[in-house]
């Protein structure tokens, strides 16, 4: 067997049945029905043919600040064949959890994998990378993680950040972020990087991504956070099996209440589905229908979103972007707002004040008119007085004159 046989050759040699392989390709088609050039072929056998002709891609898998949950998810696929298939389809040349070697042997394996496939291997990173204090918080073979990732990525063809930690820091980057944990794309530059956030992400997303890259020679279309659109274009809310309950306004309001037991919408329990871009609602975990948080009655935590998981409260509700109509209807005529007592009193008070002011003003006007007439009369008396004072007073008392 040559060092890099095609996938079909390797599968045949390792005794994997064609049936299992075609099944895997069928799952792949269901995982990414659109968004990949690989799955543009309509039939499963065409996809199997395309993949079979491809040489097994060399994959180097590095662990940093992680819980190994992403690897465990890959290994815990319920059909035992699937994990084997995935590991047979790709040539996993270095993986700390899966390899038998340790210590100097493991380090030698890493170096040989790098030199053997320099510029051709795919680097998968699991876990966040500590940057504070020159990255002293994590070391690998006596080298800081920061240095390891830079070195290995420099000779990689592409870098895949597996899981939320590698994508944007994950749990390690939660406040107060003591290690200064960041994702791969904050450190590695000049290489194509794809983020597969999720805690954990669905292993099929990784498989589809790797196969797309090695079969078609290019990465799938990515969104602004470098997530492949085939898996992260839509929010969970759009395809949620509980969506009908949301539209009908039927919400579970506490765990174990009637609504929760009846499988109603979990929005009011803090479900982050309306803002979380992931394919969980259509591609469940471990090949078991319903195995994903919302399927189990647990609100979506928003693990694929940097600003949601570890940033928002568990029971905090998220805003609804692009709200859609509910399944209730307004009546033909909506009741017009009635008059409230306060409003009526206010309007009455204003009307009363205006009316009262008008009346008072009219009274004043009337009295000032009378005063005006009086003044004119007084003026006349004054004029006469002036006239009379200029003349000599003959036998006339002032009293008489005033009358």
């Amino acid at each position, binding site marked *: 067997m040559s060092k890099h046989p095609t996938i079909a050759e390797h599968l045949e040699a390792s005794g994997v049945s064609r049936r299992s392989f075609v099944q895997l390709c069928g799952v792949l088609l269901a995982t990414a029905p659109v968004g990949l050039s690989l799955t543009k072929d309509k039939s499963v056998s065409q996809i199997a043919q395309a993949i079979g002709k491809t040489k097994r891609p060399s994959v180097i898998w590095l662990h940093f600040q992680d819980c190994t949950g992403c690897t465990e998810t890959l290994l815990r696929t319920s059909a035992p064949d699937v994990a084997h298939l995935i590991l047979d389809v790709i040539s996993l040349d270095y993986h700390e959890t899966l390899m038998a070697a340790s210590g100097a042997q493991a380090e030698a394996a890493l170096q040989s994998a790098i030199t053997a496939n320099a510029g051709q291997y795919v680097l998968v990173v699991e876990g966040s990378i500590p940057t504070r204090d020159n990255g002293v918080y994590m070391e690998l073979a006596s080298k800081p993680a920061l240095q390891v990732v830079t070195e290995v990525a420099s000779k990689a063809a592409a870098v895949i950040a597996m899981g939320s930690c590698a994508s944007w820091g994950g749990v390690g980057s939660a406040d107060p972020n003591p290690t200064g944990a960041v994702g791969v794309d904050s450190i590695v530059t000049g290489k194509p990087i794809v983020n597969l956030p999720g805690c954990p992400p669905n292993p099929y997303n990784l498989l589809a991504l790797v196969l797309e890259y090695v079969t078609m020679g290019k990465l799938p279309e990515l969104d602004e956070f470098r997530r492949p659109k085939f898996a992260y274009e839509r929010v969970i809310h759009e395809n949620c099996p509980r969506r009908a309950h949301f539209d009908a306004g039927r919400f579970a309001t506490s765990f174990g209440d009637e609504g929760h037991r009846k499988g109603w919408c979990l929005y009011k329990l803090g479900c982050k589905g309306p803002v979380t871009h992931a394919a969980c609602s259509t591609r469940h975990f471990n090949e078991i229908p319903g195995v994903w948080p919302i399927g189990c009655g647990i609100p979506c935590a928003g693990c694929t979103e940097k600003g949601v998981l570890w940033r928002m409260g568990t029971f905090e509700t998220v805003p*609804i972007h692009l709200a*859609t109509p509910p399944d209730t209807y307004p009546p033909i005529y909506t009741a017009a707002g009635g008059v409230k007592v306060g409003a009526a009193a206010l309007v009455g008070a204003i009307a009363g004040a205006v009316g009262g002011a008008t009346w008072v003003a009219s009274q004043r006007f009337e009295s000032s008119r009378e005063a005006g007439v009086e003044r004119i009369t007084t003026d006349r008396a004054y004029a006469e007085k002036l006239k009379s004072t200029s003349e000599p007073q003959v036998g006339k008392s002032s009293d008489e004159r005033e009358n």
Partner: protein
Amino acid sequence: MAITRRALISNVAKVGVPAALAVTVGTDALHAETESVPIPSIAVGLLYDASICIGCKACVAACAEANDTAPDIRGDGLHQAPSDLNDVTRNIIKLYKPDDGSPSSFVKRQCMQCLDPACAAGCPFQALHKDPETGIVTWTENKCIGCRYCTITCPYHIPRFQWQGYNPRVTKCELCSQRLEKGLQPGCTSVCPTGAVIFGPRTVLLAEAKQRIKNNPGRYYQERVYGEYDNGGTQALYLSRVPFAKLGLPELGPESVPARTLRWQRRLYQYFALPAVLYVGLVQVIRKSLAGHEQEAHQREKETGLRAQL
């Protein structure tokens, strides 16, 4: 009494101006009474068949998207659930559900695009304008003074005023004119899954509606198309199983609202008779009160020896 220059001019004005106005306005009024509502050359519209509508409200969501308006979530903060047309809702699906269990019906409400739009007739600045070709009634932002006459004159209560905001808008369905220009259908008709609402030239839609009535005898209320003649004819046409009035479509008769008011309004001004009478009456009142006032002032001057100040 000698004829002064002043009296002559004033008398000519008193008689001549109303007479001149009476001649012009009066003849216009006579003409106007016989005019019929013109149908725009390529009048486009909607045909909504309430008996096919399943109430999915895809049109409501598509309308908001097509017009780039934020969904109205003022109800519960979660759903686009306006209770009626409003400042961000141009299209709505409502439900008529009688308590007695008789047949219920959905109804789609949006602008009727009247052939003789009352909103445009009521608008003092032609901010609402009916396109002479397509017949689409559109609102122009920079002509609107915010008087809200359109919201009052419309017999269907379609134009809605934005009560919040410093530069409020009037919102009504404009048949997605911006999409029509690109050769697209209006948002609502482009997504309707059952074809309950379709878009097209009014003549085609009318023929289609009549065909449906013919093919399904007894299915439709009164076997007629609402909007063919109602309110002078509209470009949005309706078919329904239940009475139109139950769906909020009032029975307005074949005469349009503006024509009806205009008939009376023009009668008031015919030959300028009523304003002339009013004018003469007012002149008399003013003359009388002026005479009284002058007399009073004269009297006062005589009494006091001082000139009245007023």
